[in-house]
Protein backbone atom coordinates (compact mmCIF):
# COMPACT_ATOMS: atom_id res chain seq x y z
CA UNK A 1 0.00 0.00 0.00
CA UNK A 2 1.34 3.44 -0.83
CA UNK A 3 1.66 6.05 1.83
CA UNK A 4 -1.17 8.02 0.35
CA UNK A 5 -3.66 5.19 0.38
CA UNK A 6 -2.75 4.35 4.00
CA UNK A 7 -3.49 7.90 4.94
CA UNK A 8 -6.70 7.77 2.97
CA UNK A 9 -7.90 4.60 4.64
CA UNK A 10 -7.13 6.00 8.07
CA UNK A 11 -9.37 8.95 7.43
CA UNK A 12 -12.12 6.71 6.14
CA UNK A 13 -11.79 4.09 8.87
CA UNK A 14 -14.52 4.02 11.49
CA UNK A 15 -14.20 2.73 15.04
CA UNK A 16 -16.89 0.52 16.49
CA UNK A 17 -17.42 -1.10 19.88
CA UNK A 18 -18.72 -4.66 20.02
CA UNK A 19 -19.97 -6.49 23.11
CA UNK A 20 -19.44 -10.22 23.38
CA UNK A 21 -21.79 -12.09 25.70
CA UNK A 22 -22.92 -15.67 26.25
CA UNK A 23 -23.56 -18.36 28.82
CA UNK A 24 -20.45 -19.70 30.56
CA UNK A 25 -18.51 -22.27 28.58
CA UNK A 26 -19.99 -21.65 25.13
CA UNK A 27 -16.58 -20.85 23.61
CA UNK A 28 -16.74 -17.10 24.10
CA UNK A 29 -13.05 -16.77 24.97
CA UNK A 30 -12.14 -19.03 22.07
CA UNK A 31 -14.08 -16.78 19.70
CA UNK A 32 -12.57 -13.69 21.29
CA UNK A 33 -9.07 -15.05 20.75
CA UNK A 34 -9.84 -16.10 17.20
CA UNK A 35 -11.12 -12.64 16.29
CA UNK A 36 -8.47 -10.59 18.06
CA UNK A 37 -5.57 -13.04 17.59
CA UNK A 38 -4.90 -12.76 21.30
CA UNK A 39 -4.10 -15.67 23.47
CA UNK A 40 -6.21 -15.08 26.50
CA UNK A 41 -6.46 -18.31 28.42
CA UNK A 42 -9.72 -20.19 27.98
CA UNK A 43 -11.11 -22.28 30.76
CA UNK A 44 -14.08 -24.25 31.85
CA UNK A 45 -15.30 -22.29 34.82
CA UNK A 46 -18.05 -19.78 35.08
CA UNK A 47 -16.96 -16.38 36.15
CA UNK A 48 -13.42 -16.85 35.02
CA UNK A 49 -13.32 -13.49 33.28
CA UNK A 50 -14.65 -11.27 36.00
CA UNK A 51 -12.67 -8.30 34.88
CA UNK A 52 -13.33 -7.22 31.33
CA UNK A 53 -10.98 -8.23 28.58
CA UNK A 54 -10.96 -6.30 25.39
CA UNK A 55 -9.12 -6.45 22.12
CA UNK A 56 -9.09 -5.00 18.64
CA UNK A 57 -9.59 -6.37 15.19
CA UNK A 58 -9.80 -4.86 11.78
CA UNK A 59 -12.30 -5.79 9.11
CA UNK A 60 -13.22 -4.17 5.82
CA UNK A 61 -11.06 -1.15 6.61
CA UNK A 62 -12.80 -0.41 9.91
CA UNK A 63 -11.59 -0.91 13.47
CA UNK A 64 -13.55 -2.90 16.01
CA UNK A 65 -13.09 -2.82 19.75
CA UNK A 66 -14.29 -6.16 21.09
CA UNK A 67 -15.28 -6.30 24.76
CA UNK A 68 -15.50 -9.76 26.31
CA UNK A 69 -18.18 -9.48 29.00
CA UNK A 70 -18.49 -12.06 31.81
CA UNK A 71 -20.33 -15.27 30.93
CA UNK A 72 -23.83 -15.39 32.47
CA UNK A 73 -27.01 -17.42 32.19
CA UNK A 74 -29.22 -14.43 32.69
CA UNK A 75 -29.24 -10.67 33.04
CA UNK A 76 -31.96 -10.50 35.64
CA UNK A 77 -30.29 -12.01 38.68
CA UNK A 78 -27.94 -10.23 40.93
CA UNK A 79 -24.48 -11.83 40.76
CA UNK A 80 -21.53 -9.48 40.10
CA UNK A 81 -21.00 -10.94 36.62
CA UNK A 82 -24.60 -10.34 35.68
CA UNK A 83 -24.48 -6.80 36.95
CA UNK A 84 -21.42 -5.96 34.87
CA UNK A 85 -22.86 -7.52 31.74
CA UNK A 86 -26.28 -5.99 32.20
CA UNK A 87 -24.90 -2.54 32.83
CA UNK A 88 -22.64 -2.67 29.78
CA UNK A 89 -25.62 -3.64 27.62
CA UNK A 90 -28.01 -1.10 29.10
CA UNK A 91 -25.70 1.81 28.52
CA UNK A 92 -26.02 1.10 24.82
CA UNK A 93 -22.52 2.29 24.10
CA UNK A 94 -21.81 -0.65 21.81
CA UNK A 95 -22.58 -0.58 18.11
CA UNK A 96 -23.37 -4.26 18.09
CA UNK A 97 -23.71 -7.13 20.58
CA UNK A 98 -22.72 -10.69 19.75
CA UNK A 99 -24.62 -13.31 21.72
CA UNK A 100 -22.70 -16.57 21.60
CA UNK A 101 -24.75 -19.74 22.08
CA UNK A 102 -23.85 -23.40 22.38
CA UNK A 103 -25.48 -25.26 19.48
CA UNK A 104 -25.99 -28.30 21.65
CA UNK A 105 -27.79 -26.40 24.42
CA UNK A 106 -29.86 -23.77 22.69
CA UNK A 107 -32.85 -24.29 24.97
CA UNK A 108 -30.82 -23.07 27.90
CA UNK A 109 -28.89 -20.44 25.94
CA UNK A 110 -31.88 -18.70 24.36
CA UNK A 111 -32.96 -17.24 27.70
CA UNK A 112 -29.98 -14.89 27.68
CA UNK A 113 -30.55 -14.09 24.00
CA UNK A 114 -34.18 -13.15 24.57
CA UNK A 115 -33.24 -10.96 27.52
CA UNK A 116 -30.59 -9.24 25.44
CA UNK A 117 -33.14 -8.56 22.71
CA UNK A 118 -35.28 -6.81 25.30
CA UNK A 119 -32.40 -4.39 25.87
CA UNK A 120 -31.03 -3.80 22.41
CA UNK A 121 -31.96 -4.62 18.84
CA UNK A 122 -28.41 -4.50 17.49
CA UNK A 123 -27.71 -8.15 18.06
CA UNK A 124 -25.97 -10.86 16.07
CA UNK A 125 -26.74 -14.37 17.24
CA UNK A 126 -23.64 -16.51 16.94
CA UNK A 127 -24.27 -20.24 17.29
CA UNK A 128 -20.98 -21.87 18.22
CA UNK A 129 -19.91 -25.51 18.47
CA UNK A 130 -21.63 -26.46 15.23
CA UNK A 131 -19.05 -29.24 14.84
CA UNK A 132 -20.12 -30.62 18.21
CA UNK A 133 -23.80 -30.42 17.19
CA UNK A 134 -23.01 -32.27 13.97
CA UNK A 135 -21.34 -35.02 15.95
CA UNK A 136 -24.46 -35.35 18.07
CA UNK A 137 -26.56 -35.27 14.91
CA UNK A 138 -28.43 -32.14 15.82
CA UNK A 139 -29.58 -30.05 12.86
CA UNK A 140 -30.24 -26.41 13.47
CA UNK A 141 -32.29 -24.42 11.01
CA UNK A 142 -30.39 -21.12 11.17
CA UNK A 143 -32.60 -19.26 8.64
CA UNK A 144 -35.70 -20.24 10.62
CA UNK A 145 -34.24 -18.71 13.80
CA UNK A 146 -33.13 -15.62 11.88
CA UNK A 147 -36.64 -15.31 10.50
CA UNK A 148 -38.38 -15.69 13.82
CA UNK A 149 -36.13 -13.23 15.62
CA UNK A 150 -35.40 -10.86 12.71
CA UNK A 151 -31.69 -10.71 13.55
CA UNK A 152 -28.64 -12.13 11.74
CA UNK A 153 -27.91 -15.70 12.86
CA UNK A 154 -24.47 -17.08 12.07
CA UNK A 155 -23.33 -20.64 12.72
CA UNK A 156 -19.65 -20.98 13.60
CA UNK A 157 -17.12 -23.33 15.02
CA UNK A 158 -14.78 -21.04 16.90
CA UNK A 159 -12.05 -23.57 17.56
CA UNK A 160 -11.81 -24.57 13.91
CA UNK A 161 -12.19 -20.93 12.86
CA UNK A 162 -15.19 -21.77 10.65
CA UNK A 163 -17.81 -19.17 9.81
CA UNK A 164 -15.87 -16.26 11.26
CA UNK A 165 -15.94 -14.23 8.03
CA UNK A 166 -19.73 -14.44 7.85
CA UNK A 167 -19.88 -13.37 11.48
CA UNK A 168 -17.64 -10.37 10.81
CA UNK A 169 -19.77 -9.41 7.82
CA UNK A 170 -22.96 -9.54 9.86
CA UNK A 171 -21.37 -7.37 12.56
CA UNK A 172 -20.18 -4.92 9.93
CA UNK A 173 -23.59 -4.56 8.36
CA UNK A 174 -25.14 -3.75 11.73
CA UNK A 175 -22.37 -1.30 12.66
CA UNK A 176 -22.59 0.49 9.33
CA UNK A 177 -26.38 0.55 9.74
CA UNK A 178 -26.88 -1.24 6.46
CA UNK A 179 -29.06 -3.51 8.50
CA UNK A 180 -31.23 -2.49 11.43
CA UNK A 181 -32.86 -5.50 13.08
CA UNK A 182 -36.40 -5.15 14.37
CA UNK A 183 -36.82 -8.20 16.57
CA UNK A 184 -40.41 -8.84 17.68
CA UNK A 185 -41.07 -7.60 21.21
CA UNK A 186 -41.79 -10.29 23.74
CA UNK A 187 -45.23 -9.38 25.07
CA UNK A 188 -46.59 -10.20 28.50
CA UNK A 189 -50.12 -10.22 29.87
CA UNK A 190 -52.23 -7.11 29.27
CA UNK A 191 -52.04 -6.17 32.93
CA UNK A 192 -48.27 -6.43 33.07
CA UNK A 193 -47.94 -4.56 29.79
CA UNK A 194 -50.01 -1.73 31.22
CA UNK A 195 -47.71 -1.52 34.23
CA UNK A 196 -44.67 -1.58 31.98
CA UNK A 197 -45.91 1.22 29.73
CA UNK A 198 -46.85 3.37 32.67
CA UNK A 199 -43.52 2.95 34.39
CA UNK A 200 -41.63 3.36 31.14
CA UNK A 201 -43.30 6.72 30.49
CA UNK A 202 -42.46 7.92 33.96
CA UNK A 203 -38.87 6.75 33.65
CA UNK A 204 -38.56 8.57 30.34
CA UNK A 205 -38.95 11.85 32.20
CA UNK A 206 -36.18 11.00 34.64
CA UNK A 207 -33.59 9.25 32.50
CA UNK A 208 -31.97 10.04 29.20
CA UNK A 209 -33.61 8.22 26.34
CA UNK A 210 -30.36 6.39 25.59
CA UNK A 211 -31.27 3.81 28.22
CA UNK A 212 -33.34 0.74 27.59
CA UNK A 213 -36.40 1.95 29.40
CA UNK A 214 -38.58 -1.07 28.75
CA UNK A 215 -35.92 -3.33 30.22
CA UNK A 216 -35.43 -1.12 33.23
CA UNK A 217 -39.17 -0.97 33.80
CA UNK A 218 -39.33 -4.76 33.60
CA UNK A 219 -36.48 -5.07 36.07
CA UNK A 220 -38.03 -2.66 38.54
CA UNK A 221 -41.41 -4.34 38.32
CA UNK A 222 -40.06 -7.83 38.87
CA UNK A 223 -37.49 -7.28 41.60
CA UNK A 224 -37.97 -7.26 45.35
CA UNK A 225 -37.30 -4.31 47.60
CA UNK A 226 -33.56 -4.85 48.04
CA UNK A 227 -32.88 -5.36 44.39
CA UNK A 228 -35.00 -2.36 43.57
CA UNK A 229 -32.85 -0.20 45.83
CA UNK A 230 -29.71 -1.53 44.17
CA UNK A 231 -31.16 -0.83 40.74
CA UNK A 232 -32.09 2.70 41.74
CA UNK A 233 -28.60 3.38 42.97
CA UNK A 234 -27.15 2.03 39.80
CA UNK A 235 -29.41 4.11 37.61
CA UNK A 236 -29.34 7.12 39.89
CA UNK A 237 -33.03 7.36 40.46
CA UNK A 238 -33.78 8.78 43.89
CA UNK A 239 -35.76 6.61 46.29
CA UNK A 240 -38.52 9.14 46.76
CA UNK A 241 -39.29 9.38 43.11
CA UNK A 242 -39.29 5.62 42.93
CA UNK A 243 -41.96 5.30 45.59
CA UNK A 244 -44.30 7.27 43.41
CA UNK A 245 -43.12 5.50 40.27
CA UNK A 246 -44.01 2.04 41.36
CA UNK A 247 -47.41 1.39 42.76
CA UNK A 248 -47.35 -2.38 42.47
CA UNK A 249 -47.23 -4.41 45.63
CA UNK A 250 -44.74 -6.97 46.79
CA UNK A 251 -47.07 -9.90 46.15
CA UNK A 252 -47.70 -8.69 42.64
CA UNK A 253 -43.99 -8.30 42.08
CA UNK A 254 -43.46 -12.01 42.58
CA UNK A 255 -46.24 -12.85 40.19
CA UNK A 256 -44.80 -10.52 37.57
CA UNK A 257 -41.33 -11.94 38.01
CA UNK A 258 -42.63 -15.45 37.54
CA UNK A 259 -44.72 -14.46 34.56
CA UNK A 260 -41.76 -12.81 32.83
CA UNK A 261 -39.42 -15.75 33.38
CA UNK A 262 -42.04 -18.23 32.23
CA UNK A 263 -42.80 -16.18 29.12
CA UNK A 264 -39.14 -16.09 28.13
CA UNK A 265 -38.67 -19.79 28.69
CA UNK A 266 -41.73 -20.69 26.69
CA UNK A 267 -40.62 -18.42 23.84
CA UNK A 268 -37.21 -20.15 23.94
CA UNK A 269 -38.93 -23.55 23.81
CA UNK A 270 -41.00 -22.37 20.88
CA UNK A 271 -37.95 -21.24 18.95
CA UNK A 272 -36.14 -24.50 19.58
CA UNK A 273 -39.16 -26.57 18.71
CA UNK A 274 -39.37 -25.01 15.25
CA UNK A 275 -35.70 -24.93 14.39
CA UNK A 276 -33.90 -27.89 15.92
CA UNK A 277 -34.07 -31.51 14.87
CA UNK A 278 -32.45 -34.24 16.93
CA UNK A 279 -31.75 -37.06 14.51
CA UNK A 280 -30.09 -39.29 17.02
CA UNK A 281 -32.39 -39.76 19.97
CA UNK A 282 -29.99 -42.33 21.33
CA UNK A 283 -27.11 -39.89 21.66
CA UNK A 284 -28.48 -38.37 24.78
CA UNK A 285 -29.11 -41.83 26.10
CA UNK A 286 -25.50 -42.89 25.49
CA UNK A 287 -24.23 -39.76 27.20
CA UNK A 288 -26.31 -40.66 30.23
CA UNK A 289 -25.05 -44.26 30.23
CA UNK A 290 -21.49 -42.95 30.29
CA UNK A 291 -22.39 -40.62 33.15
CA UNK A 292 -23.84 -43.55 35.05
CA UNK A 293 -20.30 -44.92 35.15
CA UNK A 294 -18.32 -41.71 35.50
CA UNK A 295 -20.32 -40.07 38.26
CA UNK A 296 -22.10 -42.92 40.00
CA UNK A 297 -21.46 -43.23 43.73
CA UNK A 298 -19.92 -46.64 43.22
CA UNK A 299 -17.56 -46.21 40.30
CA UNK A 300 -17.22 -42.46 40.05
CA UNK A 301 -14.55 -41.95 42.66
CA UNK A 302 -12.37 -45.00 41.79
CA UNK A 303 -12.38 -44.00 38.11
CA UNK A 304 -11.49 -40.46 39.02
CA UNK A 305 -8.62 -41.61 41.23
CA UNK A 306 -7.43 -43.85 38.41
CA UNK A 307 -7.46 -40.96 35.91
CA UNK A 308 -5.68 -38.62 38.28
CA UNK A 309 -3.12 -41.26 39.24
CA UNK A 310 -2.35 -41.91 35.58
CA UNK A 311 -1.96 -38.20 34.91
CA UNK A 312 0.23 -37.57 37.93
CA UNK A 313 2.28 -40.67 37.19
CA UNK A 314 2.82 -39.58 33.59
CA UNK A 315 3.75 -36.13 34.82
CA UNK A 316 6.12 -37.24 37.52
CA UNK A 317 7.75 -40.31 35.99
CA UNK A 318 7.37 -39.28 32.39
CA UNK A 319 9.03 -35.94 32.99
CA UNK A 320 12.24 -37.60 34.16
CA UNK A 321 13.32 -38.54 30.66
CA UNK A 322 13.02 -35.15 28.96
CA UNK A 323 14.36 -33.58 32.16
CA UNK A 324 17.57 -35.54 32.16
CA UNK A 325 17.94 -35.07 28.41
CA UNK A 326 17.47 -31.32 28.75
CA UNK A 327 19.84 -30.94 31.69
CA UNK A 328 22.45 -33.10 30.00
CA UNK A 329 22.42 -30.95 26.87
CA UNK A 330 22.07 -27.64 28.64
CA UNK A 331 25.01 -28.44 30.89
CA UNK A 332 27.15 -29.65 28.01
CA UNK A 333 26.39 -26.39 26.29
CA UNK A 334 27.29 -24.53 29.49
CA UNK A 335 30.69 -26.17 29.55
CA UNK A 336 31.30 -25.15 25.95
CA UNK A 337 30.22 -21.64 26.78
CA UNK A 338 32.60 -21.59 29.74
CA UNK A 339 35.49 -22.76 27.59
CA UNK A 340 34.64 -20.03 25.12
CA UNK A 341 34.46 -17.33 27.81
CA UNK A 342 37.79 -18.39 29.32
CA UNK A 343 39.42 -17.86 25.93
CA UNK A 344 38.11 -14.32 25.71
CA UNK A 345 39.58 -11.47 27.66
CA UNK A 346 36.89 -11.60 30.32
CA UNK A 347 38.28 -11.93 33.88
CA UNK A 348 37.85 -15.58 34.98
CA UNK A 349 35.85 -14.50 38.06
CA UNK A 350 33.18 -12.99 35.85
CA UNK A 351 33.01 -16.00 33.52
CA UNK A 352 32.63 -18.27 36.52
CA UNK A 353 29.88 -16.14 37.95
CA UNK A 354 28.12 -16.08 34.62
CA UNK A 355 28.29 -19.79 33.97
CA UNK A 356 28.18 -21.35 37.43
CA UNK A 357 26.02 -18.68 38.93
CA UNK A 358 23.50 -17.60 36.37
CA UNK A 359 23.56 -20.06 33.50
CA UNK A 360 23.50 -23.25 35.54
CA UNK A 361 20.68 -22.14 37.76
CA UNK A 362 18.65 -21.18 34.72
CA UNK A 363 19.45 -24.49 33.07
CA UNK A 364 18.34 -26.38 36.17
CA UNK A 365 15.13 -24.46 36.46
CA UNK A 366 14.30 -24.99 32.80
CA UNK A 367 15.12 -28.67 32.73
CA UNK A 368 13.20 -29.36 35.92
CA UNK A 369 10.16 -27.16 35.48
CA UNK A 370 9.49 -27.35 31.78
CA UNK A 371 8.90 -31.09 31.24
CA UNK A 372 6.33 -31.66 34.02
CA UNK A 373 4.39 -28.59 32.94
CA UNK A 374 4.59 -29.54 29.27
CA UNK A 375 3.13 -32.93 30.17
CA UNK A 376 0.60 -32.01 32.84
CA UNK A 377 -1.18 -29.05 31.29
CA UNK A 378 -1.92 -30.64 27.89
CA UNK A 379 -3.25 -33.75 29.65
CA UNK A 380 -5.42 -31.64 31.90
CA UNK A 381 -6.70 -29.74 28.87
CA UNK A 382 -7.56 -33.06 27.26
CA UNK A 383 -9.69 -33.99 30.27
CA UNK A 384 -11.30 -30.57 30.09
CA UNK A 385 -12.20 -30.96 26.41
CA UNK A 386 -13.61 -34.38 27.11
CA UNK A 387 -15.88 -32.69 29.65
CA UNK A 388 -14.55 -34.71 32.55
CA UNK A 389 -13.64 -31.82 34.84
CA UNK A 390 -17.24 -30.88 35.74
CA UNK A 391 -17.77 -34.54 36.61
CA UNK A 392 -14.81 -34.52 38.97
CA UNK A 393 -16.34 -31.47 40.58
CA UNK A 394 -19.65 -33.33 40.87
CA UNK A 395 -17.98 -36.33 42.51
CA UNK A 396 -16.11 -34.28 45.03
CA UNK A 397 -18.52 -31.46 45.75
CA UNK A 398 -19.87 -33.02 48.91
CA UNK A 399 -16.46 -33.37 50.57
CA UNK A 400 -15.43 -29.89 49.60
CA UNK A 401 -18.79 -28.46 50.60
CA UNK A 402 -18.16 -29.74 54.09
CA UNK A 403 -14.98 -27.70 54.04
CA UNK A 404 -17.12 -24.71 52.99
CA UNK A 405 -15.90 -24.53 49.41
CA UNK A 406 -17.19 -26.24 46.30
CA UNK A 407 -16.20 -29.11 44.03
CA UNK A 408 -14.58 -26.80 41.54
CA UNK A 409 -11.89 -26.35 44.16
CA UNK A 410 -10.62 -29.87 43.51
CA UNK A 411 -9.33 -28.78 40.12
CA UNK A 412 -7.39 -25.88 41.50
CA UNK A 413 -5.95 -28.37 43.95
CA UNK A 414 -4.72 -30.62 41.15
CA UNK A 415 -2.83 -27.73 39.67
CA UNK A 416 -1.50 -26.70 43.06
CA UNK A 417 -0.32 -30.23 43.64
CA UNK A 418 1.72 -30.21 40.44
CA UNK A 419 3.23 -26.84 41.27
CA UNK A 420 4.15 -28.06 44.76
CA UNK A 421 5.70 -31.10 43.18
CA UNK A 422 7.79 -28.95 40.89
CA UNK A 423 8.98 -26.82 43.78
CA UNK A 424 9.90 -29.94 45.72
CA UNK A 425 11.80 -31.21 42.71
CA UNK A 426 13.75 -28.04 42.61
CA UNK A 427 14.73 -28.38 46.24
CA UNK A 428 15.89 -31.94 45.71
CA UNK A 429 17.88 -30.79 42.72
CA UNK A 430 19.59 -28.21 44.84
CA UNK A 431 20.66 -31.07 47.00
CA UNK A 432 21.87 -33.17 44.07
CA UNK A 433 23.95 -30.43 42.61
CA UNK A 434 24.98 -29.16 46.00
CA UNK A 435 24.32 -25.49 45.59
Amino acid at each position, binding site marked *: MTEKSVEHSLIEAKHFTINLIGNPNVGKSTLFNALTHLRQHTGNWAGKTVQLTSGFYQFGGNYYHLVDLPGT*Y*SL*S*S*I*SPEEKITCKALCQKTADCTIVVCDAT*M*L*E*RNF*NLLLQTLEITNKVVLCINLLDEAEKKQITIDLPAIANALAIPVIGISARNKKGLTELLQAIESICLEQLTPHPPVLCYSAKTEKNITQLQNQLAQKLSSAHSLRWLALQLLSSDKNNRMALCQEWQISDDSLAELINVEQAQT*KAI*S*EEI*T*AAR*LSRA*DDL*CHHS*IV*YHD*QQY*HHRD*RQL*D*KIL*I*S*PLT*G*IPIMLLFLTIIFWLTITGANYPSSWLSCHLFAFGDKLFAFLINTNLPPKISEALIFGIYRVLAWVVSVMLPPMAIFFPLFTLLEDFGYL*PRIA*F*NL*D*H*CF*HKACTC*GKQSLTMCIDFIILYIIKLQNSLKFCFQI
Partner: protein
Amino acid sequence: MTLDQLSIDSWAEIQTINEQAPLKKRLQDLGFVCGAKVQCLQKSFAGDPIAYFIRGSVIALRQEDCRYITVTPLTKERDNHHD
Protein backbone atom coordinates in the same frame (compact mmCIF):
# COMPACT_ATOMS: atom_id res chain seq x y z
CA MET B 1 -42.49 -34.06 47.92
CA THR B 2 -39.36 -32.04 47.32
CA LEU B 3 -36.99 -32.40 44.40
CA ASP B 4 -34.24 -34.14 46.36
CA GLN B 5 -36.63 -37.02 47.13
CA LEU B 6 -37.19 -37.81 43.46
CA SER B 7 -35.75 -41.23 42.70
CA ILE B 8 -33.14 -41.78 40.02
CA ASP B 9 -34.39 -41.93 36.42
CA SER B 10 -37.91 -40.76 37.26
CA TRP B 11 -39.55 -37.61 35.97
CA ALA B 12 -41.47 -34.98 37.88
CA GLU B 13 -43.30 -31.74 37.30
CA ILE B 14 -42.26 -28.73 39.29
CA GLN B 15 -44.99 -27.29 41.52
CA THR B 16 -43.48 -24.43 43.46
CA ILE B 17 -40.17 -22.88 44.36
CA ASN B 18 -40.06 -21.55 47.88
CA GLU B 19 -39.64 -17.82 48.20
CA GLN B 20 -36.78 -18.31 50.63
CA ALA B 21 -34.63 -20.18 48.12
CA PRO B 22 -31.35 -18.29 47.90
CA LEU B 23 -30.91 -19.28 44.28
CA LYS B 24 -34.52 -18.73 43.25
CA LYS B 25 -33.86 -16.37 40.35
CA ARG B 26 -30.98 -18.44 39.05
CA LEU B 27 -33.03 -21.63 39.29
CA GLN B 28 -35.84 -19.99 37.35
CA ASP B 29 -33.47 -18.79 34.67
CA LEU B 30 -32.18 -22.32 34.26
CA GLY B 31 -35.70 -23.55 33.68
CA PHE B 32 -36.87 -24.51 37.16
CA VAL B 33 -40.30 -22.89 36.90
CA CYS B 34 -43.78 -24.14 37.76
CA GLY B 35 -44.91 -26.78 35.31
CA ALA B 36 -41.44 -27.59 34.00
CA LYS B 37 -40.51 -31.25 33.69
CA VAL B 38 -37.35 -32.50 35.30
CA GLN B 39 -35.63 -35.88 35.49
CA CYS B 40 -33.31 -37.03 38.24
CA LEU B 41 -30.26 -38.56 36.58
CA GLN B 42 -27.74 -39.40 39.20
CA LYS B 43 -26.87 -38.90 42.79
CA SER B 44 -23.30 -38.30 43.69
CA PHE B 45 -21.22 -40.17 46.18
CA ALA B 46 -22.85 -39.36 49.57
CA GLY B 47 -26.10 -38.44 47.81
CA ASP B 48 -25.20 -34.83 47.27
CA PRO B 49 -25.08 -33.07 44.82
CA ILE B 50 -27.69 -34.51 42.47
CA ALA B 51 -27.70 -34.24 38.67
CA TYR B 52 -30.94 -33.31 36.91
CA PHE B 53 -31.99 -33.17 33.29
CA ILE B 54 -34.05 -30.11 32.43
CA ARG B 55 -34.65 -28.22 29.18
CA GLY B 56 -32.13 -30.22 27.18
CA SER B 57 -29.20 -30.00 29.55
CA VAL B 58 -27.81 -31.47 32.73
CA ILE B 59 -27.54 -29.45 35.92
CA ALA B 60 -26.20 -30.49 39.29
CA LEU B 61 -27.90 -29.09 42.38
CA ARG B 62 -27.04 -29.43 46.03
CA GLN B 63 -29.56 -31.06 48.28
CA GLU B 64 -29.99 -27.91 50.34
CA ASP B 65 -31.15 -26.08 47.20
CA CYS B 66 -33.40 -28.92 46.04
CA ARG B 67 -35.37 -28.79 49.29
CA TYR B 68 -36.89 -25.49 48.23
CA ILE B 69 -38.47 -27.05 45.14
CA THR B 70 -41.65 -29.09 45.43
CA VAL B 71 -42.57 -31.52 42.67
CA THR B 72 -45.16 -34.11 41.74
CA PRO B 73 -43.76 -37.28 40.20
CA LEU B 74 -44.89 -38.22 36.71
CA THR B 75 -45.70 -41.87 36.36
CA LYS B 76 -45.38 -42.12 32.60
CA GLU B 77 -41.86 -42.86 31.37
CA ARG B 78 -40.83 -40.21 28.88
CA ASP B 79 -38.63 -41.86 26.31
CA ASN B 80 -38.55 -38.98 23.94
CA HIS B 81 -36.59 -36.23 25.63
CA HIS B 82 -36.91 -33.68 22.94
CA ASP B 83 -40.56 -33.62 22.08
